[in-house]
């Protein structure tokens, strides 16, 4: 008996191992994807679900404190708030649209210039990519100094050509455009990179054919190159657009909490940050974040649809 037991156990182990192997083999696509899926679950789905739950409560002060379920009250409060929420939505959209528009047009222009080989090409490419590698908070600090209304470089430069000093970041109306400028300065290189990759993968033949047919440069760009580039352009818009919607760093670095004394640059992200970290109104803040999330997903969905239509 005592001799037999270990043998039986080991037989069982072998069997169990084989069974597991067979099971693992049958489900290998799940098994291999599992770590990534767990990762996504823990770091994205759980926080999202928790935020959704918080948005339905009146949680404030501390998330561990008792809170009541209030249904959609937070959403109602937020959606009827014309003092902070809707202006923030407006700012978020105008920031994104204007910055994105400038970045794509400028990016396309620069990409076309860099497309054909020329002397010193490498250096120019490196120089153009420099803003991209700078950290956004450092960029914010740098521009804040440059745009300082009293001791900043920008106004001294304007003074040289006789233009009166401008308020830049400290102006109620000029703060948002100034931060858009900073965003364009920093992120156009990324758009250039994506578009350049698209351009280099284009075949020369359609362009040559158009040339043979007597099309001028303008016509060749708008009727040949651009339509062929459309999928790439949409990828660039998609990537940059989502990023621009979520911009936080340069806004916070230049104007601080609340986006300035008049909330001049308070976008949805900055608003939600203030609600949770300054006001400790977690329920309300979560409602804003869920709405914001829906705006982003909606935009993404629209663009992806568009991309599919173009690709067909």
């Amino acid at each position, binding site marked *: 008996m005592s001799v037999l037991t270990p043998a039986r156990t080991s037989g069982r182990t072998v069997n169990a191992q*084989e069974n*597991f*192997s*067979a099971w*693992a*083999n049958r489900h*290998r696509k799940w*098994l*291999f994807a*599992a*770590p990534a899926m*767990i*990762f996504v679950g823990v770091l994205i789905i759980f926080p999202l679900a928790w935020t959704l739950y918080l948005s339905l409560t009146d949680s404030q*002060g*501390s*998330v*561990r*404190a008792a809170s009541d379920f209030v249904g959609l009250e937070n959403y109602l409060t937020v959606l009827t708030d014309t003092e902070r929420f809707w202006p923030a939505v407006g700012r978020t959209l105008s920031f994104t649209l204007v910055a994105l528009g400038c970045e794509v047009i400028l990016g396309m222009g620069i990409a076309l210039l860099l497309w054909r080989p020329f002397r010193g090409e490498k250096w120019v490419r490196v120089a153009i990519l420099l803003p991209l590698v700078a950290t956004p908070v450092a960029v914010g600090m740098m521009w804040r100094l440059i745009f*300082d*209304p*009293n*001791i900043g470089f920008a*106004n001294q430069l304007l003074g040289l050509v006789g233009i009166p*000093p*401008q*308020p830049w*970041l*400290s102006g*109620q109306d000029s703060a948002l455009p100034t931060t858009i400028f900073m965003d364009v300065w920093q992120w156009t290189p990324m758009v250039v990179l994506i578009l350049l990759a698209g351009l280099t993968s284009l075949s020369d033949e359609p362009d040559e054919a158009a040339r043979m047919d007597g099309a001028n440069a303008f016509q060749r760009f708008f009727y040949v190159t651009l339509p062929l580039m459309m999928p790439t352009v949409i990828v660039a818009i998609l990537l940059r657009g989502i990023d621009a919607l979520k911009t936080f760093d340069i806004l916070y670095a230049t*104007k*601080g*909490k*609340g986006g*300035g*004394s*008049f909330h001049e640059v308070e976008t949805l992200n900055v608003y939600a940050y*203030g609600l*949770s*970290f*300054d*006001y*400790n*109104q977690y329920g309300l803040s979560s409602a804003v974040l869920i709405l914001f999330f829906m705006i982003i997903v909606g935009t993404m969905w629209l663009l992806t649809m568009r991309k599919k239509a173009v690709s067909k």
Partner: protein
Amino acid sequence: MKRRSVVKYAAVAAALSLGLTACGGGSSESKGSETVRVTLANHVWTEGIKAAIPEFEKSTGLKVELTQLGEDQLSDQYNVKLNAGSDEIDVMMYRPLQEGKAFARNGYLADLTSKVAEDADWNWKDYQDGPVKATSYEDKVTGVPIITEREVLYYRKDLLKAAGIEVPKTMEELEAAAKKISSADTAGFVARTGKSAAVTQFSSFLYSFGGDFTDESGKSAVGSDEAKKAYAFYGGLIKNYGPKNVSTDMSWPEAMAIFTQGKAAFYTEADSLYKNATDPAKSKVADTVGFAPLPAGPAGSKPYNIPSWGLAVNEASANQDNAWKFIKWATSKERTLEAQKAGVPGPRASVWSDPAGTSTYPKDLAAAIAVSAENGVGHDRPQVLTVGKAREIVGGPIVASITGADASAAADTAHTAFQKFLDDEK
């Protein structure tokens, strides 16, 4: 064979992913109670303590693990970690007037009442009343003050001499002097302008004009006549005699920069920041800066006199006794004297009465501090739970006044909003 390899790969993949998550977890592994985890803000006080920590470690055999953060990051850290009930922090440096009330109510701060009474040598009675009040909550001691501040007048001796003006003793004299000195290059007056940042420095003007943020019954008082006058005066000084193109986002670093670049004659600010103006490495006007008590308004000179920072023990910490040992050491008479000599005004009465305590201070500053400590008010912002939001509300009229809008109308708007805020908070 094939099956085996699938299992092997899966095992490796699982191990790797576990490894990665473990890396993400980082410092969460449990530490022995011999290690005290201390979170401090970037401050001159912290620099002094940091240099002296080896001394503490040697005498107690404990190990100190120090995290040092900027003011805003520190707040965010506390919001995240204390909210989650984390025991990763033992000792925390916090702002009693900004966060103290909310933290105490949320149960983040350990009750230190019995601990402060334990040791007569360390002597809790040595602490000034105002700071003690600010670090207490519902008759319980929840923190030990470490740094105190009062608002004083910084001024440029050379500019005053050139203009033939005496140091202003009243608000009226201050305005007249600012007007006289103000020119295209040099502003007559500068101070904080940011909606939220300016509230604390504006508070002394408010008290000196006879107002306060709330009245005795706890109702909003920012719409009172006194408050309206104070708003109009503070904003008017900056609008009329302040720097050209003045930003409405200035906190102390920006306002201090204008003063230390030699671009302003008068500046009202916390005394604890004086080193920024007198250190030649940071200030172009180090030789010519003078200090005076806050000029008197209709209700006299009433600057705030508050503890800007304190030390507390995290309620969730499993190492509270050692955390207290650290606090007791860091707030001892000797350490307070050392810190005070390095330019950090402390909360201990005995250190102030000791001539060594003010030996390193400019004479006029020490005199101004003594005056302010006597007639000071114990708060520099609304005493509520959500201080951040309250500051934005009561700061609105300051900015309105600076930009030339009607201060009185803005104060009425702020009054309605502040009263609603106070009602909601109850």
